[in-house]
Structures are given as structure tokens and as C-alpha cells.
């Protein structure tokens, strides 16, 4: 996973609350066998609507999503985070996130920045007036800055540490490779392997 220190990009306003993971990516995409390439399924139900914010020409190339409250509720599918990542989002800002979605995001390197709803409203106003306005999210300082506004955001300290260090779960465990190897060397010899048994047995 890449380290997340500071990110600057343009942002799209998603003026909806309770966007559940089915809306982020519908169940039909769960049949796929790859881990990437889910950008075409993101917000599938809305993507045919020319007025949908991500279809509007002025919001092409955005990397920050500013969403209404209760983002990411519903099914625990990790595909929701993959789809946001694949589309190019680095940060989602909302006043409230669903727990499982937030956990999945932290594991996959997507920052979910929780702010007061007033900050969301302020950001919406700015990026709707000027879609080219750059938003800067500084994870070290836990601040969001954008054209004269500056606000702090909440993030779980453990998730923040992982993002700053660029560590996914596997990356963290691999730091304990020594302990794993020590455990392995002490495993009893009678434990089975999957290797095809030799004819001798």
C-alpha cells in the first residue's frame, strides 16, 4: 500500500445521505474474479443520468468525494472500497460513515475523513461554485484546506498510523516475519501438509 501523507485534488459534491454499498457498487459486480477494474460499477445506478455529479464535465478527474451523512451503510462488500479506489478517489469526506465500510477503507488505503456536517456544507458550497478548487487533505495535521477554509477531521489513530506508514494488514503482519518463522520452527512434526503423500506411507 502507498503511504498517505498529504493529498491535493479536486472534489465532487455528492449531495445524498445514506449512500449504501449497494449503491456504491451493485451485487452483480461481486461475480468478478479480479481485485481491480471496478470503476465502471461505481454508483452504477446513477451513471446513466447525465446530471449525476460524476458525469458532469466539470467534475472529471476528481479524487475527493464530499458525501452526505451515513456513507457506506449496508452490505460489508469490500468491492465498494475497491470501486472508489479504482475510480481514482483517494479521500471520502462525510459527517458519518458506516463502521464496516470505514474499516474496509482503512485496510485498502482509502482515507475516510469525518467532519462536522457544517464543514461538508461549506465544502459543497465552495466546490459547486468553483469545481476546479483544489482541496488539500493533510493526514499528518488532520486538516482539510480549500480556498480560504480550514477544518480538522477525525480518523481512527490506528488507521491514521497505517495510512501514514503505507501499511495494509498484510504489510503489518509481515513486520512480524521473525515471530512467524520462530513459531513455524517449533511446530510439531506430526502436523500435516497438503503435499501429496509419498508412496512409502
Amino acid at each position, binding site marked *: 500500500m502507498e503511504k498517505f501523507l498529504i493529498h491535493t485534488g479536486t472534489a465532487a459534491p455528492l449531495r445524498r445521505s445514506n449512500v449504501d454499498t449497494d449503491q456504491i457498487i451493485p451485487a452483480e459486480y461481486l*461475480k*468478478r*474474479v*479480479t*481485485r*481491480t477494474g471496478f470503476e465502471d460499477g461505481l454508483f452504477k445506478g446513477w451513471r446513466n443520468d447525465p446530471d449525476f455529479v460524476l458525469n458532469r464535465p466539470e467534475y472529471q478527474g476528481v479524487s475527493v468525494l464530499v458525501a452526505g451523512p451515513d456513507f457506506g451503510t449496508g452490505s*460489508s462488500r*469490500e468491492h465498494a472500497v475497491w470501486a472508489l479506489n479504482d475510480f481514482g478517489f483517494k479521500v471520502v469526506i462525510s459527517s458519518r460513515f458506516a463502521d464496516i465500510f470505514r474499516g*474496509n477503507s482503512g*485496510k485498502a488505503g482509502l482515507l475516510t475523513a469525518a467532519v462536522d456536517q457544517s464543514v461538508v456544507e461549506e465544502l459543497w458550497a465552495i466546490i459547486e461554485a468553483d469545481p476546479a478548487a483544489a482541496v488539500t487533505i493533510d493526514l499528518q495535521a488532520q486538516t482539510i484546506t480549500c480556498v480560504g477554509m480550514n477544518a480538522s477531521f477525525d480518523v481512527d489513530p490506528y488507521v491514521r498510523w497505517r495510512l501514514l506508514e503505507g501499511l*495494509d*494488514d*498484510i504489510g*503489518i*503482519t*509481515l513486520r*512480524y516475519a521473525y*515471530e*512467524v518463522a520462530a*513459531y*513455524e520452527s517449533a*511446530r*510439531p*512434526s*506430526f*502436523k*500435516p*501438509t*497438503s*503435499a*501429496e*503423500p509419498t508412496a512409502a*506411507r
Partner: protein
Amino acid sequence: MAARSGHTLAEKVWEDHVVRRFEGEPDLLYIDMHLVHEVTSPQAFDGLRAAGRPVRRPDLTLATEDHNVPTIDINQPIADPVSRAQIDALRSNAEEFGVLLYPLGSVEQGIVHVVGPQLGITQPGMTIVCGDSHTSTHGAFGALAFGIGTSEVEHVLATQTLPLKPFKTMAITVDGVLPVGASAKDLILAIIAQIGTGGGQGHVIEYRGEAIRALSMEGRMTLCNMSIEAGARAGMIAPDDTTFEYVRGRPHAPAGADWDAAVAYWRTLVTDDDARFDTEVFIDATAVAPFVTWGTNPGQGLPLSAVVPSPDDAADDTARIGIEQALEYMDLVPGTPLRDIAIDTVFVGSCTNGRIEDLRAVAQILQGRHVADSVRMLIVPGSARVRLEAHAEGLDEIFTTAGAEWREAGCSMCLGMNPDKIAPGERSASTSNRNFEGRQGPGGRTHLVSPEVAAATAVLGHLAAPADL
């Protein structure tokens, strides 16, 4: 192994696998065996590929194909493109990452939870994981075995460990002797009806007591298999001589001095007298009778002698709505004797009841009888080996003579993911584990039953027990 006290079986197995423990963090647990199938593994392998990581212990990883495979014409290409893509992905991933795969057509292919035990790979005291909730099956051997999600599959592939927070422990003590005609399947359906589909939430269940000790390994697997339907993460049974005899001599069983060392260790895997469980449940085995589900979750079950319940019987509004919705989906009228419910499809198979003992029980009932004209009966061995065993014992002939379809190994009609489905409105008696809406095919109606009840039902065309024949 030093003498220990105050620990449950689950805690002992857990403690013996802690690689790293740090205050405030989950324990890092070593995983002895990782079973893999085509549905939940492709993204995990894709993740490894993207990060340039190898599989740490291919020798502690075993893959097979089960959910998507057809059970007839298995030498033909798989017709459904999604199924084929998942199978193809597993084959190329196994090859690329050096994981042993038993593909369709291999003599060791089968449902992942049938394959592990029959190879002797499932042994007491192990930690076993698989991207499949019914991994709980392996707990029948006194292993700590549980299902995991796709990111966890990737984590285990990369590190052979999992960071985990401890589970709670639950004891289900089944005293007394199961009456003649009552099986392990009836027992687990009765347990789930009693504690509910959320009753085991967050727990590892340990099944204990006289009736459990008397069960065969097949029966114990049936029981532990459906722990997940009671909401639990895993089910376990302390290993004993029945367990050791089952494992002994299997292809992957320890041999020679290793066998003695293993058995000496396995004998320590019992809950200490002074151990405490977070939750305790008591069940009277003598009251268990053939059990069937009438609704759309595995907790909606009753003895076969009962009638379809009424929403008015419900304790509260939520339960009333639950019954109403189930009855509507199942197209059942309150007060109807369960025995009067006509069945058009009977499915024998799955990781719950697709082992040789289950097939023997069915054959014993079908011998000299015929499947009713109104019924289509599908008998699907849990693995290619079980199929061979059945052939060696002549069971296949009994099945086909009785008018049942005898198939190749796979998950088959347990879930609507392969060609074996029931049609909308069809009603099945099924030895599988889930009666959710549409589980066996969109609009299909499922009654969960034991193999014995399945066989009697096939003969009579309505829900029935062997005693009714």
C-alpha cells in the same frame, strides 16, 4: 504438553497457535491449514499479484473445485461463463502460486469440507480456515476451524497467520441417548430451533455430553457444519478414540512415532473441569425426533409430527411478521400437518450430509423401494472418493434402481450457483444446510431434512420419516 487447567478446548487450541500477543492488539494466530475454492479466492490471489507477494506456505494450502462445478457431463466445458471464469481463475492461480489443486475429474476433487477430513488433512488441535462459512465442519475433529472473508484469505495466503480477537465460548451439552430414528441432523436442527439462528453469535460452540460422544465422525461433522446456522463462528467436539480411529491410516495422517506423539497431544485437547464457558445450553437427547424446517431460515423447524405454525403463535410482532413472510414464501397454511406437505424434489448431498455414511443411510431405505412418480431425487456424493466408495458398496445401483439420479461430486443443489437448481415454485426436501429464499434456485422452496427423512420423503412423495414406510 504441560498440564493446563481452567481452559476450554477452544481456548487450548487458540493458545497453542498464538504467534504474537500484544496488549490492545488482536492475537496473531498461526493457521495450520488453508483450504481454498474457486468462489472466494480469485481476488485474494489478484491482491497478492498486485503486491508482488508469494504464497508463504503452499504446502499448508489446498484447493479444490466445488461450488460451480456441474455434476453431470463433467468432461464437457462448463457452460455458464461466470462459473467457468471462476474455475479458470483458480486453475491458473494455483499453477502460478504453486498451490496443489484437485480439479474437476481428479479422484480427490469434492466439496472442500468433505475432502479435508477424508484425506486425513483435518486433524485434532489444528487451526483450519477457508473462505467459506461451513469450515466449521472440521471442528468435529477438535480443530478450531472457521470461515473467513476474501481479504483474510489473502492475508493467510501471504502470511499463514490471521490477526484475531478471541471468540466467546459456548457449551451445548446433549445428555441422554438419541432415540432410534433420530440422527445428528435432527439434533442440530432441534438445537437451532431452540437457540435461534443468532443464538451462537460471536461464540465457538463446544458440543459435549453423552449423545455427542456416541456420534460417529460423520454425525459430528453434520453437527459442527451447521454451527454457522446457529450464528456461531465455529463448532468443536473434543477428540476421542472415535476421532483417532477415523484419522488413523488416512493418506495425511501421522505415522510411526509421529502418530504416538500426535495422539498424546490430542488427548490433552479436552475442556478442563474447572474451565468456564461464556454461555451454556442443555439439550435432552431423548426428546429429539425427526425434524424438518417449514420456514425460510434454519431456525424455523419442528418435529415432523407437528403442524405448520400460525403467526398467532408468535411471541412478539417481529416473530409474527417472520412467520407470516416465511409462510407466504413457502406457500403453507397454518395447521397443516408437516407430513401432508407434498415434495417434488429431493436432494441428498452437500457438506452437511454428502458423506458415505449419509449415502448408506439413504440406500438402506431405498433398497427394494421406488422413488414416487411425482418426485425427482438427486443423490450427489460430497467428493469423488465418496462416489467411488459408494460404487464399491453397490449403493449406486440401489439408487438408480430406485429411480434416483446419481451424480458426480460437488455442492450441486445446495446453492443455485451451478446447473443443479430447483425451478420457481418447486418444493424440495434437502439434506443441505440453508433454506433461505432462493438458495436452491430463485423462487424455490426448501425443507431441510436428514438423509433418512429425505429418502422416506422421496418414496412417499410427502415429508415423511422411515417409520412411515
